[in-house]
């Protein structure tokens, strides 16, 4: 199944892309995506990573479904 991952702010700069589509296996959790990303972009370890699932803040333990939209970003700083 496929999951779309969006990157914002510092995370976008590190990954060098606005989004990626990742192939994931049944039963995988957000955590697994994060591990894969940190493996590929070790600099992400230096960022406090916040995640959302389908536009809602999410825990890394949440399981993924096909076509889910995940986003990875540092703490927000609007206003």
């Amino acid at each position, binding site marked *: 199944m496929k999951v779309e991952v969006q990157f914002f*702010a510092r995370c976008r700069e590190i990954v060098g892309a606005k989004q990626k589509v990742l192939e994931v296996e049944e039963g995988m959790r957000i955590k697994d995506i994060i591990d894969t990303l940190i493996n590929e972009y070790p600099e992400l370890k230096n960022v406090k990573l916040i995640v959302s699932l389908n536009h*809602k803040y999410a825990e890394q333990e949440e399981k993924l479904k096909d076509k889910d939209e995940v986003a990875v*970003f540092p703490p*927000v700083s*609007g*206003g």
Partner: protein
Amino acid sequence: MITEEDFSIDELVKKMKKPEIGAIVTFLGVVRDEGIRGMEVDVYDEMAEEELEKLERDALKKFEVEAVEIVHRKGSLKVGENIVAILVGAKHRKEAFRACEYLIDELKERVPIWKKELNEKSEQTY
């Protein structure tokens, strides 16, 4: 609402007014000169819109207020430009002040928006 364009507080006030509103408190955030030449505002649009609507509903439930409007800019902003406006209309002023301050505090915690300062020579990190 997330927008690239600047907004008019007069227009926002006009849209908000109803007969039962006696007090409107507005918070306006502006790009402040801290030795920067401006600011780049990155927004996760869909989630930010949802979080802003959630915030507005929260405030209407939590405080005795009649109307709430939040507008946040995105894109490149120069020193002195408007970043965000939060308007709260209420029968009485105390609740409008409480709700407006609550909203900007929560916005800064919850809404997926990131400001990056642009300094004289190069871009700075978020």
